[in-house]
């Protein structure tokens, strides 16, 4: 009984829009609540795949800053989520992305995809992440001991995204 009550509470505190929930967040990210609410929102889904990206503590990184271009960011992420929804016949999708300054361990991005079968949920989360990495309107820099450094996608990130064009 207790668990059921708490799960409902967590869901009640957070209302997701369905089938798309896209957010650009200026601070914090309620990963646990979002995941619980997402799972509850799609009771008919057989499989839910989630990706959580966090700031890595290595390479002497003190902080990470994500900036964006507001007139393009949200609408670009909406288009991306909508195309994933259609391409992979999803029940629903969530794509949340932080902007601002974060420290190691902080959540940067959360993507969740719900589908009747697991293959589509995996592919959709993968597809959305590949595009958020190198085809969404964000710019990332790291603060190390000696100052700020802009981060460009790795060559692997571009190749990952190109996989989806060949299909």
């Amino acid at each position, binding site marked *: 009984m207790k668990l059921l009550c708490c799960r409902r509470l967590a869901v009640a505190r957070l209302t997701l829009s369905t089938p798309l929930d896209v957010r650009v967040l200026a601070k914090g990210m309620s990963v646990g609540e979002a995941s619980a609410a997402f799972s509850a929102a799609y009771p008919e889904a057989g499989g839910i795949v989630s990706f959580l990206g966090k700031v890595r503590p290595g390479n002497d990184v003190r902080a990470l800053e994500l900036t964006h271009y507001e007139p393009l960011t949200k609408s670009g992420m909406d288009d991306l989520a909508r195309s994933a929804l259609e391409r992979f016949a999803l029940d629903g999708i969530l794509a949340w992305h932080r902007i601002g300054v974060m420290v190691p361990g902080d959540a940067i991005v959360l993507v969740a995809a719900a589908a009747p079968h697991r293959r589509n949920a995996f592919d959709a989360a993968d597809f959305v992440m590949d595009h958020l990495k190198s085809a969404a309107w964000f710019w990332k*820099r790291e603060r190390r001991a000696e100052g700020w450094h802009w981060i460009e996608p790795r060559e692997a990130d571009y190749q990952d995204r190109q996989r989806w064009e060949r299909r």
Partner: protein
Amino acid sequence: MSVTIVFLGPLADLANGHELEVAGPLDWAGLLRAVGPDIAREIQADRVNVACGGSVLADKKSLQARDGDEIALLPPVSGG
């Protein structure tokens, strides 16, 4: 009224600022003059996109910004 040029990501470092206001209208040649030689060199590369009025231009050289428009200079992105 004027045209606002917004510098994103590393271009803001190069421009020593996030925005620049210039008199409109502004075409591609006018933009290159307005931002100075360092930025001009950067934004001529294929990897830099240009948006005007909230839309990314398919051909940035066709830029025709009017008074009140915002031009965004968009270097290679990196999210996630």
